[in-house]
């Protein structure tokens, strides 16, 4: 119950928190001749001058850059307020004019990522899903190793549950990534994109794992042993597919070549603190969700085995 509340709040905030940039973003888009405005988050400072319709403030944006901002009096704003809204840039005196107000004094602001805009929110879902997919496969392999060492069929059930959830989370990451690719790179699928190819192969490997399980005909214990062996071999390829190959080949996806990915060798994240806080909250929520579903899967399977011993 508490978890559902946390998860709901996290998802709600992931959607509702405004995405906003700084003055720099507006000026850059203006210079590039892009007509579409991006929201800017500014804190109004000292009032410099006043007229009947427009007040002028010296304002700071989220990068602490101080600029002159003209604010129409109809917006009814005062010094000290933080405003999210679209601005227009006047190059002659390098001043800005607030065009509209989207949010006043928001609790949190997500940073604007150039070229992504509102699509940047997808980081909060796509990235945790792929993290949890990896963790699910890791857990599955852990239980497979445990099964080979101990020979208890309970561990095989754990491995099967974790791997099937890994497959589910990989599918979700693929779907969210593909939709994202459609809107920021232009098409749903691109075979030149090493990330997309390698995640598809990951799906194929784990589909093959479940295919193997269904095709083995032997005692329950021997079937589980062979499946565990394949699961461990399959997991040995996961680091290559998820971490090595996308990094040595050219790609648009963050984390290729010299670009810093979310996880890199130096252990630095290049994500804005407010964003990364939500990222890790979502990772934790998805992780708890994974363990809850895995537990349910195991309980269902245990009951089914008790009721129908000859099922399969």
């Amino acid at each position: 119950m508490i978890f559902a509340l946390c998860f709901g709040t996290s998802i709600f905030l992931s959607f509702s928190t405004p995405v906003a940039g700084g003055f720099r973003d507006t000026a850059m888009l203006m210079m590039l001749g892009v007509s579409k405005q991006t929201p800017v988050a500014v804190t109004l400072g000292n009032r410099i001058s006043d007229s009947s319709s427009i007040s002028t403030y010296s304002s700071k944006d989220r990068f602490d850059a101080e600029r002159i901002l003209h604010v129409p009096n109809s917006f009814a704003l005062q010094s000290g307020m933080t405003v999210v809204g679209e601005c227009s840039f006047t190059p002659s005196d390098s001043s800005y004019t607030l065009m509209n107000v989207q949010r006043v004094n928001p609790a949190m602001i997500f940073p604007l990522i150039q070229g992504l805009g509102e699509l940047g929110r997808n980081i909060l879902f796509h990235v945790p899903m792929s993290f949890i997919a990896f963790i699910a496969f890791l857990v599955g392999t852990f239980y497979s190793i445990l099964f080979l060492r101990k020979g208890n069929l309970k561990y095989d059930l754990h491995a099967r549950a974790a791997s099937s959830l890994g497959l589910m989370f990989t599918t979700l990451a693929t779907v969210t990534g593909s939709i994202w690719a459609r809107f920021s790179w232009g098409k749903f699928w691109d075979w030149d994109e090493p990330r997309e190819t390698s995640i598809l192969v990951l799906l194929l490997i784990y589909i093959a794992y479940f295919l193997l399980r269904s095709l083995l005909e032997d005692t329950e214990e021997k079937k589980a042993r062979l499946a565990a062996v394949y699961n461990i071999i399959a997991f040995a390829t996961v680091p290559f597919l998820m971490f090595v190959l996308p990094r040595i080949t050219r790609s648009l996806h963050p984390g290729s070549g010299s670009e810093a990915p979310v996880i890199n060798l130096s252990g630095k994240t290049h994500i804005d603190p407010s964003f990364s806080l939500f990222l890790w909250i979502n990772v934790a929520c998805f992780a708890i969700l994974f363990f809850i579903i895995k537990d349910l899967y195991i309980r269902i399977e245990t009951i089914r085995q008790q009721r129908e011993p000859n099922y399969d």
Partner: protein
Amino acid sequence: MISPVLRKELRIELRNRYGTSAVVMFLLVTVVTIAFAAPGEQIPPPLMSAFFWITVFFGTMTGLSRSFVSEEERGTILLLRLYAKPEAVFWGKFIYNLLLSLSLAFTAVIIFAFFFKDFIVRDYVMFSLQLLLGIVGTAGIVTILSALVARASQKGALLPVLALPVLFPLVIAVTDATTITMESGSAWIAVRGDILVLFSFDIALILISYVLFNFIWQD
């Protein structure tokens, strides 16, 4: 303990030549199909390297898929299990598979060079290294997976389905490296990443296969 298993495999192969003749025929048919499908076309290096490695990978699957299935069918698997240690069986079969696939790859190179004027390898040492690393990893994975497939009911189709996705990191790295070698010759800097991936993949997968083989082999 390894050499008796290896010697037995080689003697059986020399006696009936099932593996080699089937594989050479497979290679010829595949290459003729490619040549027939693209008559007189200029085949660019990326495509050439892809054709070559697809042929080699499926040829290896065809040649090596029966190494444990045939034991199971002839009922000799029990004898082998009584007579030899699991490690000896694994390494014996692995070395035999390696020799068979290396000769297969060598034959494939000759056939490709004969049929395609675009099959130009600019750096022979580098290409040999890629060939060796690619084949070692394939032979290792196919050895353990063919032992696994011998236990399943749909023996025929299952090996490529299980093996190719697992081999995929190797396929990506080796086709990329071969493309670079065909395009620009000796460019160590450009292929370094691929070669490192191939090398680490081979070592990791063969060691894991060796450790896990016992669990497939025991009854």
